[in-house]
């Protein structure tokens, strides 16, 4: 009796199919859902851009169609969903706990593809120093993976307590990838990056969990306004590379904040993307601690100080930002104050392990 009332966690299978997609074996995403978890939590943890907003069962944004299985409703879905929705089998993913294995169907956010999260073994193929504290790491995988440019992966190494997540630094061009690369910044005192930077780790075995995350290029016609700092170049390079491959004709304004000239890297890659870009492409590195006496003739200061000076139509532009959270918060504030709509600002905040609340 007590076990039935207060019984411990149990897991069930959760399959999420995109609405209107093929229902074949590869069309959806197979996940494991804890009895205490909701469909939404499980999907978000798997890196799926499941539509959602309030998470309390009031907005209805996360509604999805329950194709099979039984759920327990945390808050009665009828408080929010209409009779027609309920009759059609819709449930609120944020309030749905599993009682059995589940299959649901959902309209994913625009541009989101259903790449299944895979756990793949592999090894470090190359470690290429970019600056004194940033390294490009190329992994060779035992089996190929798919991802959307802008997404990230968890990299696991034996002997390090937990996986670390890093954004893919190259585009996938919509194809399966056996070689993937990342730009990794050395975090002083960090267990993983301390290990990585201690010596040449080429050939070392790794395990990759991927892909995760919602960061990607959204449809639009206005300027792609990229703002990056530190190793935040990675997902933006990935996005721009894929956008170029797809024939994107939108203008690009790219501000990159670094301390000194010695912290600049991947300039050749950015130049290669800019060459032949089907629109205007402007890249401005901005240095915050470059000695006054140096030969640097470019802009100096914090990257956020230069955001408002760009001649961009904010009504149509989209901002894509990646870097340390304080930089992103400040940039977001400037953009919002200048009149850019919040739903046109997309950010990928970088955290190191010290920011993680719980494992």
């Amino acid at each position, binding site marked *: 009796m007590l076990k039935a009332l207060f019984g411990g966690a149990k897991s069930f299978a959760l399959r999420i199919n995109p609405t209107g997609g093929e229902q074949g074996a590869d069309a959806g995403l197979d996940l494991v859902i804890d009895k205490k978890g909701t469909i939404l939590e499980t999907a978000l943890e798997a890196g799926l851009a499941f539509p959602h907003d309030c998470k309390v069962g009031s907005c209805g944004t996360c509604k999805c169609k329950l194709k099979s299985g039984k759920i327990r409703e945390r808050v009665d879905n009828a408080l929010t969903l209409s009779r027609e929705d*309920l009759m059609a089998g819709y449930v609120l993913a944020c309030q749905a706990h599993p009682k059995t294995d589940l299959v649901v169907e959902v309209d994913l956010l625009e541009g989101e593809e259903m790449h299944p999260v895979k756990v793949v073994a592999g090894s470090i193929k190359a470690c290429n120093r970019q600056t004194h504290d940033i390294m490009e790491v190329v992994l060779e995988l035992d089996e190929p993976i798919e991802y959307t440019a802008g997404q990230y992966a968890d990299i696991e190494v034996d002997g390090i307590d937990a996986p670390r997540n890093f954004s893919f630094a190259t585009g996938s061009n919509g194809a399966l990838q056996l070689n993937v690369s990342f730009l990794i910044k050395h975090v002083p005192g960090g267990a993983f990056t301390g290990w990585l930077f201690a010596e040449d780790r080429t050939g070392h075995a790794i395990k990759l969990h991927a892909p995760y995350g919602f960061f990607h290029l959204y449809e639009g016609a206005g300027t792609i306004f990229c703002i990056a700092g530190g190793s935040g170049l990675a997902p933006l390079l990935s996005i721009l590379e894929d956008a170029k491959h797809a024939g994107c004709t939108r203008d690009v304004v790219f501000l990159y904040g670094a301390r000194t000239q010695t912290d600049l890297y991947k300039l050749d890659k950015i130049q290669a993307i800019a060459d032949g870009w089907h629109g205007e492409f402007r890249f401005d590195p901005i240095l915050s601690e470059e000695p006054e006496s140096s030969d640097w003739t470019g802009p100096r200061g914090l990257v956020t100080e230069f955001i408002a*000076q760009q001649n961009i139509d904010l009504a149509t532009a989209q901002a894509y930002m990646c870097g340390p959270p304080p930089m992103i918060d400040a940039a977001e504030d400037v953009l919002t104050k200048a*009149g850019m709509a919040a739903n046109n600002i997309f950010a990928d905040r970088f955290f190191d392990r010290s920011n993680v609340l719980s494992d």
Partner: protein
Amino acid sequence: MGALRYYICTAVMVAAIAGFYLGGNYVWLGVGTFPVLMFLDLFLPQDHRDYGVKEGVSGFIADFPLFLHTFLMIAMYALFVRWFVTMGGPFNAAGEWSWAQTLGAFLSIAWVSAVPTLPISHELMHRTHWFPRFCNKILNTFYMDTNRDIGHIITHHIHLNTPADADTPYRGQLLYPFLWQATKGSYVDAVEGEANRLRNRGKSPWHPSNKTYMQILLLIGFPLGIGLAAGTWVAGVITLAAMFLAKMIVEAFNYHQHYGLIRVPGEPVKIYHAWNHLGPIVRPIGVEITNHINHHEDSYIPFYALKPHPEGACMPSIFVCFIFGLIPPLWFHFLAKPKLKYWDNNFASPEEQKLAMQANARAGWPMWIEAPQAAAQAAPQMVAAE
């Protein structure tokens, strides 16, 4: 250490329980914690620490006083009844009525029924398991709002800081009419929400499963039951009056958490969309509800993981706010207007600035932002979005 702070809630309850156990003038013990806590909150430094309490053992330690609270409230009422049955309540052996003890009992019950009951109840309302949600219903009853969870979910979370949210006071609104607005809003939302829920399930709004019946029964039956158990209508009246005062305190709390803030309907909630009260006492006794804006951004976050935002919209000690709120000229002159002026100039988006100035015009307040898109104009090379 971070998780142990929340046992201040238990300490307040133990004081109230001990008061009714000892009887006599000790019934003031419960409300006696109020001036002590107020003094400490006012004179100790503000608490901006993120204690980093994690899931697991420390999360359990933080959670425990919340679950315990329901039982302690029941225990307090049991001892309140016992006080009448074995000690005559506020009547001495000669049958003389002590107004002081009546007042002490009333204020003690009202105080603990509002603080820490409201924030604990709110936290349990958002939990996954049926048991904390059941506790939430019981705790809501102690401040006369059994079905508060319904309105909280279908209106407050979605309409925060907009005119559709009865929990958000508009600029210029006094505390006293707001208490009526929020009380009415909470009850109307609950009744309408239940009726719509049943219609959506294909049932009549009068179906026996309508939770409004339960609310009516509990709100009448609970003070009646206390009176019957104590053997005197005085106990029932004290209970009813304490429930009412607790409800007023709860809504006054709403007033100070959301006063005058503006959000464009449908736009995302940002960290500046609620006032922070970061007193060292109110944070633990309010189980972090005084810095709960992250809860509006992501309601899955447990209370002990809510981060204080001293960089966000901040008010002074909530005890100061309560006192000033009772005296409108003090509230408007020293807190509401200067704080909202700062908020408008430093946090509000251009659209929010426009709405804020419209709200100021309605309130007869100064238009402290003459051109609401000043920020955009400060960047002349950018083409402002409309």
